[in-house]
Structures are given as structure tokens and as C-alpha cells.
């Protein structure tokens, strides 16, 4: 029997000052109309706070004969409070980047602050039983409480159990298959609580209460008054979502532990996910129904890893590889009846399909020739009423008005189709090796993803826009291989200065690319100086190394950008080189 306690208190670190870009040329405010204050200003946001965590552990360990029992009980409690302050000052006297240099007139100074609290409490128990390291069984539970939920709904009880059979410890096995050093079969079923809603956002607290927050202000007389409005539609029953995880796995190592690895398959179910029940209520009610814990989503997949390590003379080496596959589907989710089974747009039905799917127009390439254009014009082909033009993207007319099957030669939202089920990478993999010889070592790690489709897009949306809102000018892209009267075989549409669907600014198969990639994520070459040299100068070890990341990449997405880059115009992925020296005394 053992008892221990821990108490941790820390203050939450302050937040950094984010950098906000200003207009490239402050005199060109008409071109660069940012939604930021007009006058030069300095602002600073600070948050700090405290958090403590108390943990009490009570553990019990006992062996009798071949039986061994281990039991643990934990009580955990956390509480935190955060303080946010932000302030801004306008009209600087001089361009010094400090508050004192800004106008001290009260109209030029702005401040705001808020506080938030959070608290959790958990009871955790685990009982582990092991017979001769052959049969292993474990039962555990968590009883978790959170401040977010109403009294009576704060607590969630999440039990788990697992069994394992270390078959390689059986005497019959040792006799028959002595080249297998280790073989273990595992099975588990477990539940955990989670605090995410259907959009994968953290559940905000106090949704069980009717409360009011600040809203639209309004001027009466000479005074600006703050308004108040209900913040959420309360639901007293909001509580935890539960994830049930089922796993079956094998661990093995053989040939004197030279080959080792593991294999797992899993099926997880997320139940009672919090989400809006939009469609069940007449809109004249005047508010949406409160969110409820009802949605369900399931995940399944597998993963394996393999490793081979050995030595030839004084060369030591190892090679490894791993791969994982996972896919999800919605089992229960309220959606617009339009999308449901039998609805006009049932191709967008979420039930039974993964959450990350790509929808868009189906492209037939570009309108390249006058005769092609004449034919389209004669047929009355149009983009929401806009006439086709040379160099525009030609989209397939899939449906008519209100998703009907009567074609209308009009390209609009009714012609959207499912382009891919793999909006998220379904398979990720990695492999690599390391070799070392006489103090010299070489490590390489490759990483990649596949079964993955990318809709190339910009920060404004899918597809490549011809210009970005008021913030970005034309992308250099449009000076490249684009349709011109003297370049009719161009790869990309004609620049027309418009963000129309046909000029490229929408999700479509024209911009869809296989998102698979393979990259040399990390390469490291090191050399440790021989010990004999070092002792003389009192140094215990010295290693010189060269390290490079993202050195090689193979992907179809590279036509536009790095495969790990989010948008065409977002911050690119860095290639880095490090030269280093480690010295220990």
C-alpha cells in the first residue's frame, strides 16, 4: 500500500503579441482597405491567470505465487482562473513603439478585460491482474466532473476493460516456436468522455443557463448605450459525449528480437455528440432549439509498425516502417431534409459518409476555341446568367433548378457533385533507417500520406481567385500559363479580373488534385569524436551533426504549393538546415 500526493500550481503564461500586417503603402488606403482602425495605433493583449492541480494517489501492489495484483486509485482536482486584458492607444506623438509615446487623451486610449474560470474533478480507479505474465486483465474507470454542465449532468462515468494473452510465455509455445521471442494478443474496450460538438469545437460552458451578453449598441440622445441579448438557448441536459474505443492488437518480436512489430485494428464510436437540432422546429419559434447530445459518429481503421535491427561487423543499423488507416462516418446527424435520403440533394447526405468530403462543380477543361464558344452560346449555356467567354472554365450541367434532373444549361449551385470522399488523408505512413559506424551516424526519416484529395484554394475560398478581396492583389499565378488569344492551349483559365465560378473562384474538379505526398522529413548525419582525444581536454563527449528537414518532396500538389501548405497564399512550409556541435564536460 502506497499513498502519495501532488500539488501543482502554475501561473498561465501571457500571450504573445500577434503581428498584424498594415497596408503595404499607408497612402494607398483606397486600395488596401483593411478592416482595422484608420489611425496608427499600438495594441497589446495580455492574459494571465493561475491553475492548480491536486492529485492523490493510493496504490496497492501484491504478489502471491504467480498472481500479481496492482490497484490504483486517484483523486484529481483542478481549478483555474484566467484574466484577459487588452488595450490600444492611438495617435502617437512620435513613432516609438511604446505606449508612452501615444496620445494620453482618454478618447485615444482603449481598454478591455475579462475573467474566466474552470474547474474539473475526477475519480480514477484501475485494477490490474497478471498471472505469470501470461494472462493479463485490467479494469479501470474514470468518473469525471466538469464545471461546464448543469448540476446533475456534470459527471460522466467511463469504464474500460482489457485482456491480454502473452502466448509466447506458454510452455507449449516455447517448445514449438522458439524462434518467436515474444507474441502477445491484446483486446480492449474502453470509454472516455469528450467535450467536442458536431463541428469539433470545444463545448462552451453554462449552456444550461438562460443568460444575456452584450449585443448591438445604439445611440439615444448623445449617449451610446450597450444592448443585451440572450447568449444561448439553454438546455439543462447538456453533458458529456462518450467515445467507445474497441481495439484488437498483436505485439511480436522474433529472430532474437531482430524483427519486431505490432498490428492493431480499431473501431471507435463517438456517441451523444452535442449538436443543433435545426430542422425539427418551426422557424417562427424565433430561436433555434438548444443544442442536444444526440449525434453519433464512428471511426474504424488499422495500423502496423515493423522494425528490423541488426549489426554487420561494427556497422549497426535499423530499418523501420509504419502505416495507419482511418476513416469515419456519421451515424446520426440532423440535416436539412433536402440532403436527407430521398431529398432533392441527397448526394450531400452526411449519414453514412465521412465528415470531410469535397463537393464542387465538375469541370470539362477550358473553352478554348471560338467554335466551341459559339456552340455553347447558341445552346444558351450560362453561368448563373453570365455568358461564357473564351478561356473560361467549362463546367458540366448536371442538374436543373432546385436540383431537378431537367438540365437548364445554367451552371449554378444545383450542378455541384461529390468530387471526393477523401478530404482528409486516410492513410499516413512513415519509414526510415539509421546506420552507425565508428562514431559516424546517418538517420533518415520519410513521411507521407495517401488516399487524400486536395481542393486547391486560397484564403477567400476554394479554387484560385483572380484577386483577393480588398487585401491581396492579383496572384502571380495569373501571369503564368493562362489562356490568352495567343496561348489557347494554356493550362489555366484566362485572367479577367473577376472572381466568378468560370474564372476559377470556386470548388471544382479543375482544381482538385491527388493530395498524396512523400517527403524526406528529416536527415541527420552525425560524427562523435573518439573518446581518447577528448579525455585529454576534459570533455566527456562531442558530437558534430548536420541536420536537414523537408529536403525532398514528391507530390502532385507541388504544381501549386507545398503539399502541407493550407492554401495557395498561406505561409509556406520551411526547408531547414542545422549545423550543430554538442559538447559535454
Amino acid at each position, binding site marked *: 500500500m502506497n499513498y502519495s500526493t501532488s500539488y501543482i500550481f502554475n501561473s498561465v503564461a501571457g500571450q504573445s503579441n500577434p503581428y498584424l500586417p498594415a497596408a503595404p503603402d499607408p497612402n494607398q488606403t*483606397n486600395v488596401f482597405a483593411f478592416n482595422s482602425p*484608420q489611425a496608427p495605433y499600438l495594441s497589446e493583449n495580455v492574459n494571465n491567470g493561475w491553475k492548480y492541480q491536486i492529485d492523490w494517489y493510493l496504490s496497492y501492489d501484491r504478489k502471491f505465487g504467480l498472481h500479481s495484483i496492482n490497484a490504483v486509485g486517484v483523486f484529481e*482536482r483542478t481549478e483555474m482562473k484566467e484574466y484577459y486584458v487588452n488595450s490600444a492607444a492611438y495617435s502617437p506623438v512620435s513613432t516609438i513603439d511604446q505606449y508612452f509615446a501615444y496620445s494620453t487623451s482618454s478618447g485615444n486610449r482603449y481598454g478591455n478585460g475579462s475573467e474566466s474560470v474552470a474547474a474539473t474533478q475526477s475519480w480514477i480507479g484501475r485494477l490490474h491482474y497478471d498471472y505469470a505474465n501470461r494472462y493479463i486483465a485490467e479494469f479501470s474507470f474514470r468518473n469525471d466532473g466538469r464545471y461546464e454542465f448543469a448540476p446533475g449532468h*456534470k459527471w460522466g462515468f467511463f469504464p474500460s476493460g482489457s485482456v491480454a494473452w502473452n502466448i509466447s510465455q506458454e510452455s507449449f509455445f516455447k517448445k514449438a516456436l522458439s524462434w518467436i521471442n515474444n507474441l502477445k494478443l491484446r483486446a480492449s474496450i474502453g470509454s472516455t468522455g469528450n467535450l467536442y460538438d458536431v463541428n469539433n469545437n470545444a463545448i462552451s460552458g453554462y449552456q444550461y443557463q438562460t443568460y444575456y451578453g452584450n449585443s448591438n449598441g*445604439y445611440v439615444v440622445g448623445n449617449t*451610446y448605450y450597450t*444592448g443585451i441579448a440572450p447568449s444561448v438557448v439553454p438546455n439543462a441536459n447538456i453533458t458529456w459525449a462518450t467515445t467507445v474505443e474497441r481495439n484488437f492488437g498483436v505485439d511480436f518480436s522474433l529472430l532474437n528480437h531482430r524483427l519486431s512489430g505490432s498490428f492493431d485494428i480499431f473501431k471507435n464510436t463517438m456517441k451523444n455528440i452535442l449538436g443543433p437540432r435545426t430542422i425539427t422546429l418551426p422557424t417562427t*419559434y424565433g430561436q433555434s432549439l438548444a443544442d442536444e447530445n444526440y449525434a453519433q459518429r464512428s471511426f474504424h481503421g488499422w495500423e502496423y509498425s515493423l522494425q528490423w535491427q541488426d549489426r554487420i561487423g561494427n556497422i549497426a543499423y535499423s530499418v523501420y516502417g509504419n502505416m495507419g488507416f482511418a476513416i469515419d462516418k456519421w451515424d446520426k446527424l440532423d440535416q436539412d431534409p433536402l440532403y436527407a435520403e430521398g431529398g432533392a440533394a441527397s448526394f450531400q447526405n452526411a449519414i453514412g459518409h465521412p465528415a470531410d468530403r469535397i463537393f464542387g462543380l465538375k469541370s470539362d477543361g477550358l473553352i478554348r476555341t471560338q467554335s466551341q464558344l459559339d456552340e455553347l452560346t447558341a445552346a444558351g449555356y450560362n453561368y448563373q446568367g453570365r455568358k461564357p467567354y473564351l478561356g473560361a472554365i467549362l463546367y458540366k450541367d448536371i442538374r436543373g433548378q432546385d436540383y431537378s434532373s431537367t438540365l437548364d444549361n445554367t451552371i449554378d449551385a444545383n450542378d455541384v457533385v461529390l468530387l471526393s470522399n477523401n478530404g482528409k488523408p486516410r492513410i499516413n505512413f512513415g519509414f526510415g533507417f539509421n546506420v552507425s559506424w565508428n562514431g559516424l551516424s546517418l538517420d533518415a526519416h520519410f513521411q507521407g500520406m495517401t488516399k487524400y484529395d486536395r481542393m486547391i484554394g486560397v484564403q477567400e475560398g476554394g479554387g484560385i481567385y483572380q484577386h483577393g478581396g480588398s487585401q491581396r492583389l492579383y496572384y502571380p499565378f495569373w501571369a503564368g500559363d493562362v489562356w490568352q488569344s495567343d496561348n489557347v492551349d494554356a493550362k489555366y483559365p484566362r485572367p479577367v479580373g473577376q472572381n466568378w465560378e468560370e474564372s476559377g473562384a470556386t470548388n471544382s474538379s479543375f482544381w482538385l488534385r491527388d493530395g498524396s505526398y512523400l517527403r524526406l522529413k528529416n536527415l541527420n548525419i552525425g560524427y562523435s569524436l573518439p573518446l581518447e582525444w577528448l579525455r585529454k581536454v576534459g570533455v566527456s563527449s562531442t558530437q558534430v551533426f548536420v541536420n536537414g528537414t523537408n529536403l525532398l518532396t514528391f507530390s502532385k500538389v507541388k504544381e501549386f504549393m507545398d503539399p502541407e501548405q493550407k492554401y495557395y497564399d498561406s505561409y509556406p512550409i520551411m526547408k531547414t538546415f542545422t549545423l550543430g556541435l554538442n559538447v559535454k564536460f
Partner: protein
Amino acid sequence: MKKIFYNNIIIFLVASVVLVSSCSKILDQSNLNSYSSTQIWDDANLANAYLINLYSIFGNYNVSLDGLSDQQSGISFAANAVTTTNGGGALAGLANWSDSYTNIRLINQGISSVRTGTLPLTTQNEILGQLYFMRAYVYFSLVTTYGGIPYIKVAQSVSDSLNVPRNSTKECFDYLIQDLDSALTYLPTHILSSSSDYGKIDGNFAIAFKGKVLLYKASPQFNPSTPWDNVYWADAYSANHLAYDSLQQQGYQLISDYSQVAINSGNTEVVFCVINMSPNKTSNWESTTRPASLSRGNPYSCPTWEIVKAFPMVDGKSYNDPSGKFYQTDNGFAQNFWQNRDPRFGKSVLYNAELYPAAGTPSGYRQYTSLGIANTLDAYGINPNAGIPAASNNNTYTGFFILKNGDLNLSQSQVTNYDVNYNVMRFAEVMLNYAEAANETGHSSEALDVLYQIRKRAGIEAGTDEHYGIVATSRTEIRQAIMNERNIELCFEGFRFKDLRRWRMFNVLNGVAKHGMESIAINSDGSQMAMTQAQQLATTYQLLTSNFQYLSRQVPMTGVLLNTLPDSYYFAPIQQSVIAAGNKLEQNTDWGGSFVPTIN
């Protein structure tokens, strides 16, 4: 050893008791960032804040509204732009269904809760007056957009039967009047502009708005079979007559300078306004109307050649009226459109090479719009001799900019600080509402008198007959004169599209092209001026409006060129998903349903 062990156990037990006893408490953290809903109707400040939130129903300046009509550029109605799936497209923008019902719920909740609080009775009454008015105001937008709607008067609870049918359009109008009458019993009659309550709804706004509601009820939109001869015109007349008389007695009147109707805050013409006050409450009017080279972004929508033509000449006659002093052919007028016009034209529209003394511009600054001469951000047209590509904004620009209600004291960097009050209703509208109802009920001299007053203030010459250029005598002619006057007097204030809908006159928009006016600098002999010379002269603002030739061009130049507004658009369809969620709602007859949105 043993003792230490016992001590530990004791500490553990004591601590456990302490913890367990506070266990249930620690998770009961209170929400630090909210107001409790139970105190609102006991606290005058919170009750006021509750109302303040609802005042946003009155909106603010919105340059897009007249882009729906013939007054400004913009094609909002491509073929089939309105469907049951999108629930009305641009039409639904005039009354957002779900936002409206969200506000209605808050209003109903307020009406039913005020009396449960401990506020003084007079405060409770003021709150009730405002809430009843707001309910009518929100439902009015819905009824004029969709026809009759479920006129819900209680904040429903989930256990109520929520699946409610639409009230007939006639019932809705009756309820609107009931709500306005309730409001009138509680509201203070007149909140003076000097009052600290200025900006809140008063009885005068309610009485004038009641006139407006009854005018709509009588109008052709709701009475297609008896557009001008239905019984509701009499009610419209008496309500508007009462509003006109009672407001006039209290000192409401047209101010002398038309250009100041909004800029001069608290003037005698304002019946109700949304007060803007920089930096807390500003409007984007300046930044969405001003020429881009002096603003922070492009104007969204610009005056069309059609509205420019519609302004009368200074003698009150149209340019193409042969009896007018300034009669001209279409072509002659196009080269001369800024001369001898109704002064309201120069106060509402900024045209090529007009003086434009915006803050920060050099003295004598003229606003050019000619391609090659104007700043590229302001240029309109395709002149191949300009030496530069066609202007990039030819689809929204017209060669004209909106000047009305602009605040020229704002420098370029300050345009987003625009804080001129937004007139929701001004006395000129009350007068025109009265004139329209008077004309349809046989009181034509009263109608004409209103038109004379409006034109007198505008600065139109009285003429020897003191009729300010109006020759209309018959009921139909006077009706047309009133329609024309509304188009001009209330231009760019968001009235035109709603008026065309009310009069069932979408023929003015359906398939009708809008135009802009390209300007090209010419020599005195009419030949095109060399571009370098024109640019040289323009740098010192020596090129005048008359130094240009004017060519009309259809706007937009590319994309969908014409509006398509079939008669079914007089009432928007209720969105398919709204009907799916509340299956007692019937769709309008023009949209495949059985609900008749009209009265007659």
C-alpha cells in the same frame, strides 16, 4: 514508522472530508461573463439595454437597396434569381425571415414580462409602447415581402403547439394597426431633438408609420384586382391626413436646404432617425458611395443615367416636355444634362468634372470620371483613345456618383467614420404618403398642394401659375406626378424598389437596361482632344463638364445584363426549408402553394 503512517492516514481522512464536502461546490463555478435573465425587468438599466438591442431593427444606410431599382447600377435579379430553395434571394434581403422572428420573440418576451418586474409604472408603459411599435415594424417588413405571415404575439414555449399557420394578409394588417394603436396609448407624443431620449420611438413616428402601413394596405401590391378603387384608400387617407396635420401642428416642416435633410441633425423634417455617432456607431454610406480615389474602397453602386434623366428641369418640367422652357431632344440633353436642372440633381448626384470640395482635395478640385483623365479608380468607360485599358469597374460604375447625404468634411482616411444620422422617416415622406392617399380619394387639391410645397423647397421655379411645373389635373396624371416626385425627392434613400413593388410596376425593371454615361474630352470644334492635352488641363482642373462629349453605355458591360422580374416577385416565396420545418405554412399561390398573399 508506524506513527508516521497513522499520521498520514489521519491527514488523508481529514483532507478527504474537507474535499468531499467541497466536492460538489468546486464545479459550481458561476458564469463571470453574463447578465442573469431574472433581473432584467427589475433594473431600469438592464431593461433599457434589452430595448437598445432591438433598436437595430431600424438598420442604417444601405447603398445596395436602390441597386435593386432603376436608380442605381446593379443586376440583382438574373433569370430565376428567386426560388423556393433560396427563399427569395434579393427579395428576402428586404425582410430576413429568421432574423425577424428572432426579434419578434424578444419583443413578445418583453411585452409579456415588463409587468412582472418592479419598474415604476411610467417606465413600464414607455417600454411597452416601444415594444408594440417594434412588433408592428418588424411584421410590416415581413407582410410587405411575403404577404400574410404567422402573426405571433406571445413568446412561445417549446411545449406550445409551435406549428402555426399563416394569418391572412388582411388579418395581419388588422394586427399591425392594433399594435400601433397600443403603442400610441403608451408612447410620449413628441421627443424633441434636444431631449436625452432623442432617437427613441415617439407617438409622432407611430402615427406617421400607421399612415404608411395603411397606404401599403390600399396599394396595388395587395389589391391587384382593384388597385386604385378599393375601400382601404379611405382609411389610408384619414390616417395620413391625421399624421400630416398633427405633425405639422407640432412644428414638423421641410427644411429650406434639401441637401441638409440628414446632415443637419435633429432638424424639423426628421420624424425618426437612427443616430450615428463616431466612433461608436458609424455607417458605411460615405465609403460605399464616394469616388474610390478619395475613399477606402470602391463605391458599391452608382446612379444610373435613368435617374439622372428623371430629375426635372429647374422649371419643373421634364427635359423632353415640349412645353418646358428647357425642352431638348434626347441627344441634345445628353450633352447638356447638368444645365438648368432641379437643384436636387446637383445635391444628389456627382457628375463628371463637377467641383467636389471633399476634405483633403486641392482647391478647385473637380471630380473626373473620364477614362484616361480621371484617376483609374474613378474612371468609367472604354474609350480606345485613352491609351489605357477599359476601366476595371465598368460593371458597377456609371460615370456618376451619389452625392446625397455625403459628408465632405471627412478626409480620405476618415470616410469610415461617417456618422450622419440615418433618416428612417422624414416629413417629406409623410407628405408624399398623404398626397398619394388624398389623390386616390378625390382630394386632388390637397395632393397638388403637397407637391407644390415639396417642389418649392427643392428650389424649382414657381412659374406664373405657381404650379412649379406641374400640369397634372386628372387623378391618373396626379398619381403619375406623385410617383415621379417620390422617385426624385426620396432618391437613394431605399424607397424606389419598395415603391415599384407596391405599385406593381416591375415593368420599369423587368428586361429594362440600365445605363451609364461615358465622358470623352473634346475640343471646342467637337473633335476629340488629344489625351496628353486633356490630362494636362485636368491636372489644374481646367476641363469643365462642358468640355466633354457624353456617350451612354449599358451597365453592367459584362455578366448578366438585364433584370428579370416576373409578376410572381411581388411576393417572395417562403423558403422551402422553412415550410419543411413548419408544415402548416402554406406557400404563396405564385410559388406553387395555396396561400393568397393579396387582399383583393
